[in-house]
C-alpha cells in the first residue's frame, strides 16, 4: 500500500469546491487537509451562533423588522416550531405598516446563517425587486425582515398578509465550504396548513454556487410561473412557464 500521496493536479479542482485531489497518508487524509477541514468546521460552528446586528435589516432595504416567537438562539435551535411562528403582538405591528393582499410578499430571515444574509441580500434583494417588477408584479409587500426565522414563518406571514406568492430569503445551515449560502423559498398563497410539499426552493445562492443576480432572475421567474399556474410545491413545474 502506498504510504503517502500528496495533493495532485489543480485543474479538476477548479471545477468544484469539493475537497478533491487532496492526497492521502495510508488511507487517511494528510495533516494539512485534516487541519483545514477542522478550521472550516470551527468557522461553521461559530457562524451558527452569530446574530444579525440591530440596524442591519434597515440597511438591507427592509421596511419592517419583525421577530419569531423564539426567545433566544438556544430555543430557536432546539425548538424549531418557535421560529415558524411570529412573536406575540407582531401581527398588529405588521398590519400597521403593510397592506394585505399584495401580488407578492418578499421576506428575509436570518435562519441558520446571519452571515449569509449579510453577504447575499445586499445584491440579491434589490435585484429581486427589480426582476419581480419586470415579470409584471405591480404590488409588492415588504421586504419584511424576521429575526430567528425558520422557513415555515413564510406561512405565518402569509396568514396575515395574504399575498398571491410568498418569497422568503433565508440563511442556510452553514457548510464547510461556505457559511454564506442563502436559500429562496417560494410558495403560492402561503398560509396555515401549508407544508414543505407546497413550497419550492432555490438553494446554494452564494459566490461559489448560484450567483445572487442569477438567483434574483430565477426566483422572479418562478414567482411569475406560480401565479400563472396558481400552484407551487410538488405540482409546480418551473420549466412549464
Amino acid at each position, binding site marked *: 500500500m502506498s504510504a503517502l500521496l500528496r495533493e495532485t493536479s489543480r485543474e479538476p479542482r477548479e471545477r468544484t469546491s469539493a475537497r478533491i485531489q487532496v492526497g492521502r497518508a495510508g488511507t487517511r487524509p494528510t495533516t494539512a487537509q485534516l487541519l483545514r477541514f477542522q478550521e472550516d468546521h470551527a468557522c461553521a460552528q461559530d457562524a451558527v451562533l452569530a446574530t444579525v446586528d440591530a440596524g442591519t435589516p434597515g440597511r438591507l432595504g427592509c421596511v419592517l423588522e419583525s421577530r419569531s416567537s423564539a426567545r433566544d438562539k438556544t430555543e430557536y435551535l432546539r425548538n424549531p416550531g418557535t421560529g415558524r411562528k411570529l412573536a406575540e403582538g407582531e401581527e398588529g405591528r405588521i398590519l400597521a405598516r403593510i397592506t394585505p393582499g399584495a401580488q407578492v410578499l418578499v421576506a428575509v430571515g436570518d435562519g441558520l446563517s446571519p452571515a449569509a444574509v449579510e453577504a447575499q441580500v445586499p445584491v440579491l434583494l434589490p435585484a429581486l425587486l427589480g426582476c419581480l417588477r419586470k415579470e409584471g408584479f405591480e404590488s409588492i409587500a415588504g421586504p419584511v425582515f424576521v429575526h430567528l426565522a425558520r422557513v415555515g414563518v413564510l406561512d405565518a406571514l402569509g396568514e396575515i398578509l395574504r399575498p398571491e406568492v410568498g418569497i422568503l430569503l433565508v440563511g442556510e445551515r452553514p457548510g464547510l465550504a461556505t457559511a454564506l449560502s442563502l436559500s429562496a423559498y417560494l410558495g403560492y398563497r402561503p398560509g396555515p396548513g401549508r407544508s414543505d410539499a407546497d413550497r419550492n426552493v432555490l438553494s446554494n445562492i452564494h459566490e461559489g454556487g448560484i450567483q445572487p443576480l442569477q438567483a434574483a432572475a430565477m426566483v422572479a421567474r418562478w414567482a411569475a410561473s406560480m401565479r400563472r399556474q396558481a400552484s407551487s410545491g410538488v405540482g409546480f413545474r*418551473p420549466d412549464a412557464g
Partner: protein
Amino acid sequence: MLQTRMRGRSWNFGSLYEVMAKANAPKSGDRLAGICAQSAQERIAARQVLSEIPVSRFLEEPAVPAERDEVTRAIQAGIEPIAWAEIRGWSVGELRERILAANGPTLLRWGKGLPSEAIAAVAKLMSNLDLVSASAKIAVDVRCRTRLGGSGILSSRLQPNHPTDDLAGILASLDEGLSYACGDAVVGINPADDSVGAVRRTADAVSEHVHDVLGVPTQVSVLAHATTQMEVLRQGGRLDLVFQSLAGTEDACRSFGISGQLLSEARACQKELRPELGQVMYFETGQGSELSAGAHHGIDQLTLESRCHGLARIHDPFLVNTVVGFIGPEYLADGREVARAGLEDHFMGKLHGLPMGVDVCHTNHMDADQNDLESLAVLLAAAGCTFFMGVPMGDDVMLNYQTTSFHDLATLRETLGRRTAPAFEAWMEREGILRDGLLTESAGDARFFSAGRRRSA
C-alpha cells in the same frame, strides 16, 4: 395493565405508545414532542413494562389506526403469516433474547413476520452492542444491475454532489471517489436544481460516464422527487434506481408529496422500462421527519422510523438508508444521540429484511464533530452495515453537511477486513485501484480516470 413496581415505587402508564415513547433512549425529538420519560427511572420502568408486553399486541394496536393511515396498512400487508404465527406469543423481552441467540437466516424469517412497531419495541430494549451483534448476523442480498449485500461486504454510495450541478465538477468528484474504490452501491447525486430538464441532464451525463465510458459495475441515481424521476424516465432519461424519501405516517408522506400508490407507480414504471433490472427502488429515511412535518400523531421517532421501514419493505428496494443526524439538533442533539439512533435504525432496517445503509452524518448546528461520525461508522461497519456515503473529505458542498469520506471507506475496509461488492472489486482490480481488497499505489489519484482514459474508451 401497563404498570410496574421498581424499588418500592409504582409506575403507571396510560397507553401502549406512552410506554413506547418513555422506553426510548433519550432523544431531543421526543423531548420536543413532549412524550419522553421525565426521569431516568421512569425510562427504565417503561422498559420493564414493555419487556412483558406480548408481541401480538402490536398488530392489534398499531401506532396509527389502519383505517386512517396507509403506512399502517402497508406494514400489515407486508407481514408474512407463517412467521407471525411463530412469533406472536412471545413477549418483547423474550423476543430480544431469542434475537440475540438466533442465527441470521432465522432472524430474516422472523423479521418478515414482525410488525414495524414490534421491531421498534425490541430495539428499545437492546443496548448498543446488542444492536451491533444482532445486525451483524443478518445478511441481506439484493440485485439491480449488480449484486449487493452479503457478509463481509461494505459498500458505498458515491455522492459527487455539486452546488450548481456543474457536470465537470460532478465528474471530477466522481472520478476521485472511484480512485478510492467507492461507489459499488450506487453513484447517487442530489440535484441542486430539481427540475425535469436539469435532472435528466445530470442523469444522462453521469450514466454515460459510469456505464458507457468507464463500464463501472454499479447503479446511477439522481435524487429528485419520484414524480420528477418518473418524468425523466418517460422522456427516455437514464436512471437505474428510482429514489424517494419516506416518512412513517400517511400525513407525513403527504407532506413529502408521496403516497403508497405513487411509490407503486414509480416502481412499475421503471420495471416496465427496464425489465432486465432486479430491484429498482432506493429509499431514504431518518428519525424526526414526521415531527418536523407536524404529522407524528404523538408517536415517538424511533417507532415512526421503523414504520418507514415497514413501508419500504412492501416496495422491495435495492437500497435503503437512514440519514442519521441530518435534520438537526431538535431531533438528535449530539453525537451520543446520533450514535444511538444510527445503530437502532440500522438494526430495525435489517430485521425488516432491508438492504440497510446509513448516512452517518452531522450538521454544523448540532453538538457533534467528525470524531463522533468516525466512531459511529466503526460501530456500524462492525454491525454489517450495507453501505455508507462516500463524499470528498466527507464535506458535501451541495447539501452542506458532513458525512463519511472516500478515505473513511478505505480505512474501514482495511481496518475491519471488509471488501467491496464482488463485481466492483473485480473491476477495480483490473483497473489497478485495488489489490486483494486494499488500495494500491495508484489509488487516490483521479488522474487515473481522467483525459487519457476517456480517450481510450
